[in-house]
């Protein structure tokens, strides 16, 4: 590996807060600076800002649940984040679609479907929810308490370009 490759790979690890296996004095110097922490903080701030504007629903829900900041920081550190904002949104909702909280996962799957359909996909997407999504959106809009889970998936949201309003919701108890 060339010196340049070695340097850049180490810089990537430092910026993403990953361990580096080197006794290189320059890397030790960089690791010790306050500027490195500031760069990380600014990078995460930009990702947060971008995601709040590109995946509005998922970001708003996760903010309400108090898990957005940590999720963005982990997403930034652990993913090969795209330089293109819209791609970052897709990467983020794809990652959050596997979130341990089923409400976050459903919302992220729903937003992923919206992004696809709005960018011209002719596909039809189905997302299961364990509570009424209308109530979830109403609670987010009005700052009310989020509805509790009904225990198992019982609402079915479909997203497609040929659905009037692009979205429809069905209760299947």
């Amino acid at each position, binding site marked *: 590996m060339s010196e340049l490759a070695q340097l850049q790979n180490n810089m990537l690890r430092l*910026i993403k807060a990953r361990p580096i296996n080197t006794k290189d004095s320059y890397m030790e110097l960089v690791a010790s600076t306050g500027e490195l922490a*500031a760069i990380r903080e600014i*990078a995460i701030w930009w990702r947060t800002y971008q995601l709040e504007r590109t995946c509005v629903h998922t970001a708003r829900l996760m903010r309400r649940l108090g898990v957005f900041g940590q999720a963005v920081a982990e997403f930034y550190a652990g993913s090969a984040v795209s330089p293109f904002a819209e791609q970052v949104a*897709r990467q983020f909702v794809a990652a959050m679609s596997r979130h341990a909280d089923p409400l976050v996962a459903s919302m992220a799957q729903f937003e992923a479907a919206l992004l696809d359909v709005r960018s011209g996909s002719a596909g039809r997407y189905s997302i299961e929810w364990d509570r009424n999504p209308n109530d979830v959106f109403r609670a987010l809009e009005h700052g009310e308490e989020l509805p509790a889970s009904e225990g198992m998936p019982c609402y079915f949201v479909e997203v497609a370009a040929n659905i009037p309003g692009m979205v429809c919701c069905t209760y299947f108890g």
Partner: protein
Amino acid sequence: MASAGVIAQRRVATTTHAGPVLATTYEGGDVLLLERLLERARYIEITPDTIARHAADGCALRPEALAELKSIDGRARLLVHGVGLSIGSYEGYSEAYLRLVDELFSRFDIAWHSEHLAYTTVAGENLGTMLAMPRTAEALDMICQRVCAIQKRYPAPFLLENVVHLLPDAPGEFSDAQFLNQIASWTGCGLILDVYNMECDSLNYGFDVDAFLSELNFENVRELHLAGGASHGGLQLDVHSRVTAASTVALAAHAMTRASQLQAVTYEYLKEAVPSLGRDAICGELARLSAELHL
């Protein structure tokens, strides 16, 4: 040192040079602002990365942004200024970014295009920030080869810009000015001198602006960038969110006395800063720079 193969003929057009004119940023989505910018600016700087959207084969320019650029219709010329090329990444620069530039060149009359002398991606991962290159012979050779390849690909001149140094410099063999001089000399590319970036470096770690300017070959400088920004955690940031400070304008005026080939002075601001800055302040800034710098 760079191989003979990277040496190319000078491509920066100077034949019609008639003094610098005013340029400014436009990142799409605000036609009212664009119309007002066109009353002042002779060049409009666009950033392909910010007007791109997801497409089946990667990224493509947004049709609505292309329509806005088409509406300029000869009232100003376009400058393409990238963020995502990552010309300094050891594994190669971004072909996805260049495909966006290809599309712009196929549709519009681009006066010149430019990028930061930096890297934003490593091994396919975006850093979320822009880092300065180590000023080594290895990096110089690589950059020169890439500049030559880019110059072959496009019919318009290509310029490189000095970036802020947010981290301590990596060990290297050249000073900042020597590195820029060598790249321009060996490839024939032009340079953008970002005056605000120099000020950030000066404030952040005592960068010697006078020494840098004394050593820089101003014959290669085609464009100045001006901006204003905020500080965070004791760092003056390369975040273009404010009007230009008086000290930045004064430094620009000083640089202009030496840059005989200067073609444009560009006031840059982020799209995200428009709501807080306001359209009036942006247009007022253009009027102010035009008057104070005689553009």
